[in-house]
């Protein structure tokens, strides 16, 4: 039931208490012993038609015969219609090949008649049993055999036509032995028509034991109330279980053991008489006794019968019947659907695995092992209004803890805003006034004295019309300082008629180089500026990608690294680059950069390829400290640092330019910045001192 594993020795599941082992007889089968014995007998016998076995007369049958023998003249017994195989025809001796059991004395003395049997000893004659030609006449006790019909193989004919019902009633007088006691049918209650119509499905072999008249095709078969097997239109009318004539379909589909049973019982009394010899409770007897048994009348005189059932005293008139003990085989015939679940016959054909193609095999996976999502149960906590209110309050408290507290922005202080405006105004004035008025506080002086002089000396060593390689590697943001620092140098080179070759490792370098030339020429360009302004003496090679790798590649093979100009012309055929095959062919290399790494790259990658050619750097004030070691080590032949350095260079070259124009404002802005910082520091120090004094006084 629950699908869990249990030890083999348990009869009930230790988890759900379901029965593990179905009710079975000693042999482990759920069939009654008498039926199981028949099957076992059949299984043990070979397939070939075996010889008719010796009939085994059970004790109950022998006792019945004894009683019948004693009550041979009883009217009740004469009215019993027994099947042919059960009735010993005095005129027709049994076949010689069949062992005739010794008829037993079945006479029953009236005083020794069991209670259950004495009930039937009625003077009323029993009518001729009606042929059981319809399912409505099938008693309930026989209907309960329907589950056994499912045990039969399916090949044995679900679709078989209804068998032909034997003409002879199974319970005719001639079919029973004459010595059987006649049980009157007075106390037997015929099952009502509707109950009689409730035919439980019986196995085919039992359905074959039908009465004489076959069912007419037009007659609808009433559906049974309790049906162990789904009734079908082809259900055969219930026949007496004791009939030896099997219907055609049953003969075709019945197991061999049943056929043998039929053959064995044809000429001799059958051994499988379910009810004879055992006491039944009166109530069950009244409801479930077959017709043939109900018509049995009490023998007039009979010897005490040897019955395995305990003898019960005859009930006195007016007293209730003492319930008899139900034997086991009768209990086994109870509807077992309430005890043992009807096994579902799965006729599916296995499609996978090693058992593919076989039918009626157990599924590989039990239904209990099916993986399914656990059922969800609705869980609702019953709470009061007060509890819900408290819950909401707790949730709000927790939510407020998770939420960030809004930070109150401090109101902008007026003194800070004023201070900013004041500082901005001072710096702007310090820059604009000297530049506009062309006034300087002090004469321009470079931060590192002697650098500009070295650069000028290197340029002065050049001859006229010397090819000069100019690297413009600064960002547009620092163009103001770099142009002021390099304008003097460019102006001096242009004045010497140098052929300028522009290259850059920055994407904006080529455009800044054009701007630098324009700035160097100034507002009033000289005549020698004209070729540079129109590009005659300038070859702009554009952008070299790859930073240090580009510098190394350009140093190794400049023509391969930068073959074209920004205008798409082949650069190395231009007059500007005439005679230039390597960097050592240039007269001077000028690097203009604000980045110390770029300057370092030029010094480390390109300088080895220059040979003895001078290398001059024009750097910003922020990069100068990092590049000074190269100047100090002799790897750089000159260096111009910032606005002041450009101013000094222009001063030395006697060609005023942007350097000298911006130097005054640069110095003034720096002076203002220094003053503002000093004043601010002093004010803060005084404020701190005053506060601490007050705090001490208050303390």
């Amino acid at each position, binding site marked *: 039931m629950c699908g869990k594993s249990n030890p083999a020795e348990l009869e009930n599941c230790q988890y759900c208490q379901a029965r593990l082992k179905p009710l079975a007889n000693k042999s482990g089968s759920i069939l009654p012993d008498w039926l199981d014995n028949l099957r076992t007998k059949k299984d043990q016998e070979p397939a070939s038609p075996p010889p008719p076995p010796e009939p085994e007369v059970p004790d109950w049958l022998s006792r019945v015969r004894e009683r019948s023998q004693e009550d041979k003249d009883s009217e009740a017994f004469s009215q019993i219609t027994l099947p042919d195989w059960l009735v010993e025809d005095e005129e027709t001796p049994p076949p010689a090949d069949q062992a005739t059991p010794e008829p037993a004395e079945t006479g029953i003395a009236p005083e020794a008649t069991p209670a259950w049997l004495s009930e039937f000893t009625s003077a009323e004659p029993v009518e001729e049993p009606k042929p059981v030609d319809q399912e409505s006449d099938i008693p309930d006790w026989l209907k309960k055999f329907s589950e056994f019909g499912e045990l039969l193989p399916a090949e044995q004919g679900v679709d078989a036509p209804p068998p032909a019902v034997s003409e002879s009633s199974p319970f005719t007088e001639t079919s029973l032995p004459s010595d059987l006691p006649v049980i009157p049918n007075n106390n037997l209650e015929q099952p009502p028509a509707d109950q009689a119509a409730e035919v439980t499905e019986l196995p085919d072999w039992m359905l074959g034991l039908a009465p004489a008249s076959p069912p007419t095709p037009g007659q609808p078969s009433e559906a049974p109330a309790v049906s162990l097997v789904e009734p079908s239109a082809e259900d055969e009318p219930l026949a007496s279980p004791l009939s030896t004539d099997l219907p055609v379909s049953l003969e075709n589909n019945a197991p061999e053991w049943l056929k043998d049973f039929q053959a064995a019982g044809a000429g001799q009394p059958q051994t499988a008489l379910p009810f004879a010899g055992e006491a039944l409770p009166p109530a069950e007897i009244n409801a479930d006794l077959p017709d043939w048994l109900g018509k049995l009348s009490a023998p007039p005189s009979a010897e005490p019968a040897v019955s395995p059932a305990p003898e019960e005293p005859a009930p006195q008139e007016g007293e209730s019947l003492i319930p008899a003990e139900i034997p086991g085989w009768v209990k086994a015939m109870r509807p077992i659907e309430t005890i043992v679940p009807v096994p579902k016959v799965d006729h599916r054909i296995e499609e996978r695995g090693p058992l593919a193609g076989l039918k009626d095999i157990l599924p590989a996976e039990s239904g209990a092992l099916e993986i399914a999502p656990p059922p969800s149960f609705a869980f609702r906590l019953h709470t009061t209004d007060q509890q819900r209110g408290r819950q909401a309050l707790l949730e709000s408290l927790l939510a407020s803890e998770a939420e960030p507290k809004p930070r109150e922005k401090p109101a902008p202080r007026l003194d800070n805003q004023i201070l900013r405006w004041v*500082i901005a105004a001072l710096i702007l004035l310090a820059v604009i006034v000297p530049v506009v008025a062309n006034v300087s506080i002090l004469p321009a002086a470079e931060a590192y004295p002697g650098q500009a002089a070295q650069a000028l000396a290197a340029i002065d060593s050049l001859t006229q019309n010397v090819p000069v390689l100019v690297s413009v590697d600064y960002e547009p943001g620092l163009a103001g300082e770099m142009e002021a620092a390099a304008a003097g140098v460019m102006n001096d080179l242009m004045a010497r008629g140098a052929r300028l070759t522009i290259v850059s490792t920055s994407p904006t370098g080529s455009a800044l180089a054009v701007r630098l030339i324009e700035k160097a020429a100034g507002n009033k360009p000289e005549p020698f500026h004209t070729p540079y302004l129109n590009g005659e003496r300038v070859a702009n090679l554009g952008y070299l990608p790859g930073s240090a790798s580009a510098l190394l590649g350009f140093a190794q093979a400049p023509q391969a690294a930068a073959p074209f100009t*920004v205008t798409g012309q082949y650069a190395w055929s231009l007059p500007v680059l005439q005679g230039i095959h390597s960097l050592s062919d240039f007269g001077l290399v000028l690097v203009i950069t604000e980045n110390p790494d770029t300057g370092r790259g030029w010094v480390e990658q390109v300088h080895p390829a220059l040979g003895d050619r001078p290398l001059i750097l024009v750097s910003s004030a922020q990069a100068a400290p990092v590049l000074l070691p190269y100047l100090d080590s002799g790897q750089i032949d000159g260096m111009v640092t910032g606005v002041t350095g450009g101013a000094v260079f222009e001063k030395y070259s006697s060609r005023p330019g942007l350097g000298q124009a911006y130097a005054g404002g640069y110095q003034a802005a*720096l002076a203002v910045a220094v003053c503002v910082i000093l004043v601010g520091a002093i004010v803060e120090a005084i404020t701190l001192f005053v506060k601490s004094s007050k705090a001490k006084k208050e303390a």
Partner: protein
Amino acid sequence: MKSPVSAAIAIALGLIVLGGYFLDIPVLQSLRAELVTWAMVLAAFAVWIGVINLLSVHWKKAAAHAPDAPYSIILMVSFALTVIFGFLDTGLSATPQTQQIVNSIQLPIQASLMALLAFTLAYASIRLLRRRRDPVSIVFLIAVVVFLILGSGLLPSFNLPVLNDLVATLNRLPLAGSRGILLGVALGALTTGLRIIIGADRPYAG
């Protein structure tokens, strides 16, 4: 590419370039030159990849209607115009459009930001003592003042021997520090190159 293969290629090429630098073997030198040229080409494509990535990021922002989507649209439009003008410059005659873009848009914007930086630093220096009152802040302020004075050229302009010597001495201080930095950078680059050559360091997703 699997790790052993990429490591083998990196080591082999590093040895070739290093060998071509020190050894006077024409084959190695020619290979070295060729490999350096390949590096330049790869760097150029890396610039294009960066540009494409930038455009994709801003395209997604604009498509997702992010709060700053208008700025992304402006960036993409500006990029498109600059590229168009740049391609027009490849003719036999240069066009002034690219130069105007640099002169009128890029340079003024970047220069303004640098000027704002200068003003911000000056204001922050004033409020330094209000935020942090410790000896380090005082020393920093003093150093700033001194080198601002030195950089402006105010002291050397006096042309006083004492001042000149003082200035020269003070100028050696950053020189010494920068020299140490440069040596450290050089040694680090050397060590990194050796680690790559011997396969101990695999920054190329090996």
